[in-house]
């Protein structure tokens, strides 16, 4: 009996071990995070969520979409590259990210990322307003020649894909026009509808839902099937404009194991061929394609070259020069300037403190702070390129030139003013103690997350302020944690900080 049991046990262990080696590759074993670089609701967010929904047909893997908005994707890319290359984090990216990488000098990102799959491409197109007199490509050309560089085109941000496409179109068509950037494509479309400009560059999807909008020219080899009326650039006699498009795809960190890469290739392939996936995008006139890593990487490098060329042309990227101003462009020198100013400010503080003005110290230091800040900003404003009619420096300088004299007036007034009797410093000390506690709390949140550090902070804060009912303090703290968990985390879906150490443990 015992022997049998032993035998059974050994068999089980051997079997388990066999299974282990058989299952050496079992991906994924935990949820996969899909990072989206905008807030919820944008096109890329929808792309990611639709992908997750379709992918669930083909795999049991759990996907979690995580929105990490900020700096046009740089924040999200940083996050991706901070995490290990284990395939558990993928990043939903667009061609706009390349423009951002180039303009922020982050070329290193391109080589640190494995450009896994490009899944869709929307051809770029020129959109006009039917009610405007200039409502077709030939009209647009004639009007541009007549206005001689003063024709207005509207669209989203400077240096983005749509702007660069417009620059290319002008180059190939031999015209000149002005790009008026708006906060978003939608706001630019409003301006086009209000006849504030004559053309808009974007994707074909933008004309959907509005009868007054019309595609004047599309950058594609053939006419698009949802828009049979819209001519291609080649038909209109403009060569070399048949392959400008916005792409979207998924990437992960370079160094991800081969087997995991193969797993993703398989999944991308299946999703691309899924009829639901294809139909959903077809309705929006978006071209579903599937370009694998090699081809995609090549495309990304071409995009990088192109953006670099055009961003230099419009002055967002500058070629290096060696003078004081170009030195100041270097963040190291900028931070040095900040440090020096801080030192100056501290010295001034000490001087005032030991002078006869110490009673007025606050009322003197605040205007001095504003003046120093203005001076720093003024110096830095020389580093901005000044190509346009109203350059980037104009408006900040306007505020600076108002801020400095006004603060000098305040300073003079306060120097003359009689000294106020010193306030009791006991209560100020309490504020500083409380601030110190807050800083500890912030550190706690950074490393241990919201829940653990709040559990310690709340009682500490309440007791520090002199509340002495210990049991109710404990109950209040626990009650608050439960409340914030259910109301903020569960009902309102606020993602509370988890903490670096806890993240590592998990």
């Amino acid at each position, binding site marked *: 009996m015992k022997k049998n049991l032993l035998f059974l046990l050994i068999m089980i262990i051997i079997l388990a071990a066999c299974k282990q080696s058989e299952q050496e590759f079992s991906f994924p074993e935990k949820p996969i995070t899909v990072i989206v670089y905008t807030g919820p609701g944008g096109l890329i967010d929808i792309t990611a969520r639709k992908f997750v929904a379709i992918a669930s047909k083909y795999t049991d893997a759990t996907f979690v979409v995580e929105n990490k908005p900020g700096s046009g994707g740089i924040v999200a890319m940083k996050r991706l590259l901070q995490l290990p290359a284990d395939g558990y984090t993928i990043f939903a990216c667009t061609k706009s990210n390349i423009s951002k990488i180039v303009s922020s000098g982050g070329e290193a990102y391109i080589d640190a990322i494995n450009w896994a799959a490009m899944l869709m491409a929307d051809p770029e197109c020129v959109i006009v307003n039917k009610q405007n007199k200039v409502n077709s490509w030939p009209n647009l050309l004639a009007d541009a020649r007549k206005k001689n560089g003063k024709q207005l085109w509207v669209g989203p941000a400077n240096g983005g894909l749509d702007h660069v496409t417009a620059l290319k179109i002008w180059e190939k068509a031999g015209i000149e026009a002005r790009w008026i950037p708006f906060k978003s494509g939608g706001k630019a479309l409003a301006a086009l509808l209000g006849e504030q400009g004559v053309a808009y560059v974007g994707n074909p999807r933008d004309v959907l839902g509005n009868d007054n909008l019309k595609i004047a020219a599309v950058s594609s080899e053939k006419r698009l099937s949802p828009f049979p009326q819209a001519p291609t650039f080649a038909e209109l006699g403009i060569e070399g404009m048949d392959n400008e498009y916005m792409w979207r795809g998924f990437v992960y960190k370079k160094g991800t194991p081969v087997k995991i890469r193969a797993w993703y290739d398989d999944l991308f392939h299946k999703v691309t061929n899924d009829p639901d996936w294809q139909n959903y995008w077809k309705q929006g006139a978006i071209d579903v394609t599937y370009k694998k890593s090699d081809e995609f990487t090549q495309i990304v490098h071409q995009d990088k070259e192109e953006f670099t060329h055009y961003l230099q042309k419009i002055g967002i990227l500058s070629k290096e020069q060696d003078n004081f101003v170009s030195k100041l462009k270097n963040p190291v020198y900028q931070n040095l300037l900040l440090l020096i100013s801080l030192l100056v400010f501290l010295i001034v503080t000490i001087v005032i403190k030991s002078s006869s003005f110490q009673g007025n110290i606050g009322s003197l230091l605040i205007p001095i702070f504003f003046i120093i800040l203005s001076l720093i*900003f003024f110096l830095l404003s020389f580093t901005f390129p000044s190509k346009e009619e109203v350059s980037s420096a104009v*408006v900040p300088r306007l505020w600076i030139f108002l801020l400095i004299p006004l603060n000098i007036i305040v300073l003079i007034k306060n120097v003359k003013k009689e000294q106020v009797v010193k306030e009791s410093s006991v209560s100020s000390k309490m504020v500083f103690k*409380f601030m110190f506690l807050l800083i500890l709390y912030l550190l706690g949140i950074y490393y241990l997350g919201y829940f653990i550090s709040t559990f310690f902070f709340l009682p500490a804060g309440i007791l520090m302020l002199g509340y002495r009912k210990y049991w109710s303090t404990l109950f209040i703290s626990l009650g608050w944690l439960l409340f914030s968990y259910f109301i903020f985390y569960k009902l309102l879906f606020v993602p509370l900080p988890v903490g670096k150490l806890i993240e590592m443990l998990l």
Partner: protein
Amino acid sequence: MEILTNLLQGFSFVLGWQPLLFIVLGVIMGILAGAMPGLSPSMGVALLVPFTYAMSPTLALILLISIYISANYGGSITAVTINAPGTPSAVVTSFDGYELTKQNKPGMGLGVSLISSTVGGFIGTIILILFSVQLAKIAVKFHPAEYFALAVFGLTTVATLGGRNWLKAFIAAIFGLLINTIGIDPISGVSRFTFGSVNLYDGFSLIPALIGLFALSEVFKQIEEQNFKSKKIDLGKTRWPSFLEYWKLKFTILRSSILGTIIGIFPGAGATIAAFISYDVSKRTSKEPEKFGKGSLEGVASAEAANSSSVGGALVPLLTLGIPGSASTAVLIGALMIHDLTPGPQLFNNNPEIIYGIFASLLLANVVLLILGLFGSKLWVKVTVVPKKILYPMIFTVSIIGSFAVRYSFFDIIACLGFGIFGWLLRRNNYPVAPIVLGIVLGNIAETNFRRAVMMGGYKIFLARPVSLILLILAIISFGWPLLRNKLYNKKELSN
């Protein structure tokens, strides 16, 4: 007549138990999100969007719109009770609302803010239903030069905000305008004053700055003054406004609602500017302007009516043109798109059930908001009797959640604390902090539109377009007059 039948049709979509449940749920979530410093209406909506993907489009929109409309009211609760505006637009509500609480009359502030919010929301919706198509045509014609003039006009409210401290108020506003230029320049794409930090590429977010400047600096100030005694408010006897007191506000509410709706229509202007401008207009036209900032019911009413009615306005370009008029409606567009709906004029023809369902749920959400608010007010007012020693640490933890939720960034939490300490130092030296918020809100609109307008038509364009010319002249008058009056007043005081 056609509108009426369509609207009745719309009501038939929302008068089931399920849609009604979603409206109630949405209003509750909206009030909570709004009341929470840091969760603005647009964020309340954005956080929920992913969870509506699985719902039917009508239900999803009903839920999101209920959140949107009630969050604008929710912001006033914390503004009135603890001077921590839950939403940017409730900053204006706090000017008088918190004063009322300090005078032991929190019920007055909460009552007026609820009624003005719901009436304002109603008026905004009615304007939306009746005139959206015509208004949208005007909205797209609004030229950058006119946006600039509107922003300048909004900035002149500093003169009213500052009172006798106008020089410091002016400095605070310009400081707000200057720090607003930090980040990627929206026109040229160059990075400005970022010191190489990725966190500053988008500049300082408004929400953490707002929480720091208002909520945290207030807590620091109270701790410094050792102001821990909860006022002995007998909640049973808290005074709520009488019908007569509401009735006296009818013109203020009506005017502010119309103003709020109109300002809301222009893409990018939004609830905060609407609240600031209509507060300013109310103060100038009031019979008791001296009461503003000291607990004026008109002040609370004009701010709340304006920010709630701006919701109706912001939906005009969204529904008629498919163009978002505010951050919240930009999120709604995403919600429409995930459900295969293309926002724009064709939506009226292709999916009338969506449009009229939205209209009906807007009206219903306001009614639900009124009912829940009337019950809730009895609850909100209790916040004022929570022992301060417990309340202050809690305000801080709430602020952390709020600033973090903006873009899930730890940097924003640090920025919030920084603004809190800075705001406390400023207030200690009699600098008002509200103008900083005004500067941050308006800076971007003023700058980008100024430069856009010059690119489009040179400097002369501001004078060449009648609307911008009129707005600029109004701005000069409205800026100069309070200063002049102050000067005269000071002289009089001296000679006395």
